[in-house]
C-alpha cells in the first residue's frame, strides 16, 4: 500500500512538472559511487559502480517518463585510466556485462526506442570492450524516439582538440577554408554534433565543478550541483533539479537568444571580411553588390561545411560498424 501511494504521488508530481517546461536534454555527472561503497562498508569500490549502473537505469526511466528525450552521462573519463588496474578492469568488465544486458533484456530501451551512442576516444579502449560498445550502438542505431549518450574515454578538452584536428584535416584535404571555421562548425565536429546542447546539467556528490565534461556544450545550460551520492540519487532529487531548471528557463532562453545574435553577427562579419579579402578592385564594391557577394559567399561556405560534416559523420559511423561482424 505504501509503495502504491508513493508511486501514485510520484506520478502526480511528474504530471505536474510536465505542465511546465521540460528539459529536452539532461546531462548527468554520476559522481559518488566509490564514496557510497566506502560509506556502506562494501570493501571494494566496484560494488558502488554496480549500484551506480542500477541508478542510471532508474534515472533513465524517470527522464523518459517526464518527457526528456536525450540523456548524456559521464561514464568514464580519460583521467579515470589513472585509477588502479583492478578498478579500471572492473569497470571495463561491468561495461561489457551491461551492454550484453542491453542487447538481451532491456525493456526500457526497447519500449522507448532509445538510441544509444558512445562518445569519446573509443580507440583507447581494449578491443573486446570496443567490440561490445560497437554492438550496443549498432543494435540501437535505428531507434529515434530518445537518445542515451554515454561518454566513455572522454574529456571535453580532448573532444574540442579532436574537433579542431578534424577541421584542420578538412582544410588540408581541400574540403574547407580556414575562414570556414566557426562556432557552429566546431559544434558539429564535437562528439555531440548530432545533439542539441544540454538544457540541464546535474552533478551529484556535492562537488561543484564540471570536471572536463561538456565544457563547450554547457555554456548556456542550467547547472545543478546536488549534495547526494549517485547511488542515493532519488526521483525527488531529479524533480528538484527540473523545478530549478523551470524557474531559470526564461532567463537562460533570453541569454541563449543573445548568444545566437552575437554568433550570427560574428559569422556575417567573417563572411564580409572574406569577401573583401578576395576583392580585386581598387574601391570597395557598392553596398547592394557587396551584400549579394556576401550572401553568395555564405551559401558556398555552407555547402562546404555541410559536405565536410557529412563526410566526417560517415567516417565516425563506419568506424563502429566495421567492428561488428555482418549478421
Amino acid at each position, binding site marked *: 500500500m505504501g509503495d502504491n501511494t508513493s508511486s501514485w504521488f510520484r506520478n*502526480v*508530481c511528474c*504530471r*505536474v*512538472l510536465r*505542465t511546465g517546461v521540460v528539459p529536452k536534454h539532461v546531462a548527468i555527472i554520476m559522481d559518488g559511487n566509490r564514496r557510497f561503497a566506502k560509506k556502506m562498508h562494501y570493501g571494494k569500490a566496484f560494488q558502488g559502480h554496480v549500484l551506480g549502473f542500477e541508478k542510471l537505469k532508474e534515472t533513465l526511466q524517470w527522464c523518459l517518463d517526464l518527457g526528456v528525450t536525450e540523456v548524456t552521462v559521464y561514464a568514464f*573519463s*580519460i*583521467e*579515470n585510466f*589513472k*585509477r588502479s588496474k583492478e578498478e579500471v578492469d572492473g569497470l571495463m568488465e561491468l561495461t561489457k556485462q551491461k551492454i550484453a544486458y542491453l542487447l538481451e533484456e532491456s525493456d526500457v530501451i526497447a519500449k522507448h526506442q532509445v538510441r544509444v551512442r558512445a562518445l569519446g576516444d573509443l580507440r583507447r579502449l581494449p578491443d573486446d570492450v570496443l567490440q561490445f560498445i560497437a554492438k550496443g550502438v549498432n543494435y540501437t542505431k535505428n531507434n529515434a524516439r530518445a537518445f542515451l549518450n554515454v561518454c566513455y574515454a572522454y574529456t*571535453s*578538452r*580532448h573532444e*574540442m*582538440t579532436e574537433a*579542431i*584536428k578534424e*577541421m*584542420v*584535416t578538412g*582544410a*588540408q584535404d581541400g574540403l574547407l577554408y*580556414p*575562414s570556414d*571555421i*566557426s*562556432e557552429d562548425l*566546431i559544434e558539429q565536429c564535437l562528439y555531440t554534433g548530432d545533439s542539441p546542447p544540454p538544457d540541464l546539467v546535474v552533478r551529484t556528490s556535492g*562537488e*561543484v*565543478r*564540471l*570536471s*572536463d565534461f561538456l*565544457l*563547450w556544450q*554547457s*555554456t*548556456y*545550460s*542550467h*547547472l*545543478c*550541483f546536488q549534495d547526494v551520492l549517485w547511488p542515493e540519487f532519488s526521483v525527488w532529487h531529479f524533480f528538484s533539479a527540473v*523545478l*530549478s531548471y523551470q524557474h*531559470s528557463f526564461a*532567463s*537562460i532562453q533570453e*541569454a541563449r537568444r*543573445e*548568444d545566437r545574435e*552575437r554568433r550570427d553577427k*560574428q559569422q556575417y562579419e567573417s563572411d564580409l571580411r572574406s569577401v573583401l579579402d578576395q576583392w580585386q578592385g581598387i574601391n570597395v564594391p557598392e553596398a547592394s553588390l557587396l551584400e549579394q557577394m556576401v550572401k553568395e559567399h555564405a551559401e558556398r561556405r555552407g555547402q562546404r561545411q555541410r559536405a565536410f560534416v557529412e563526410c566526417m559523420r560517415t567516417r565516425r559511423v563506419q568506424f563502429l560498424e566495421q567492428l561488428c561482424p555482418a549478421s
Partner: protein
Amino acid sequence: MGFADILAALCLHGVHGVTRLKASATYAFTWLCSFLLYVVKHKGTKLESITCDVKTLTKIPLHTTFIVQEKLESFEDLARAVTWTFALGGHVVSVYDSKGNLKKDLARLRTAIVLQQEKLFGAAGPAVQVATLQDAEGFDALNKTGELFLVLVLSPEDGRQHIVETAVGVCKAVLQNRVKMEDINIDLIDRKLTATLTEPSLAIVFGGLQCSLGYPPWHLRVTEIHFLPVLRKLVYQDLYTVFQKYASCQQRLGT
C-alpha cells in the same frame, strides 16, 4: 488537464513556493544575522580582520573569476568584491560580463577598483591593473611576483569565439607548414588559450542564474563554481564563506 491535475499543480507549486519562501526567509534572516555580526565584528571590513581570516584558509585560489549577469549601474559593489578577493590572498581576478558592458566602461571600473583598493590597503598598497585580455597580453599572466594585482575584464568574445580564432590560427599554421598535424594536441591548444587568461580555480556566479553564460569554456575544466545572489546584496561574509568552501574542497582529478 482535469480538475485533479490542476489541484495537484497548485499544491505542488504552492509547496515549492512555500519552500522557496521559507528558503528566502531563512536567507533573509541569515543575511540579517550576518550583517549584524559584520557590523559588530568588523565595524566596516578592515584589512586586519581579513588578514586574520586568511590564516584560517588552508588554500587560496590564485585566480578567481566573477561571472556577472546583471547590468551594473554602480561598480562599487563589484570593486569591493574584487578588493576583498585580493585581501584574501588572490592575485588575479577576472570579471566576466555576459552582456559585454564592462568593457565599454573600463575607465569607470578601473577608477572604482582603485578607490576601493586605497580604502582597504591605503595609499601604499599594491598597484592594480585593470585590462581586457587583448591589452593584458605580455603582462605577467600568472602574476607570480604578487607585486601587482591583475583584473581582467572579459566578455562573450573571449569565450568560444577565442577558441574559433585559435583553431583558425592553428589551421593556417598547418597549411603553411609551420606546425605539423601530429603536433596538434591538448597542450598546444591549452598554451594558446591560457597564455593571458589562466584557468580560474574558483568561479563565483552573481545574479541568481546557475549558468556560466558563455564564460570561456576551455578554462572551466576543474573550476569550483559557486552561486551567489546579485552583487548589490553581497557582504564580505558571503565571499569569505565561498573561500572557506573552496579551501575545504578536494580535487581527485579522475583518480
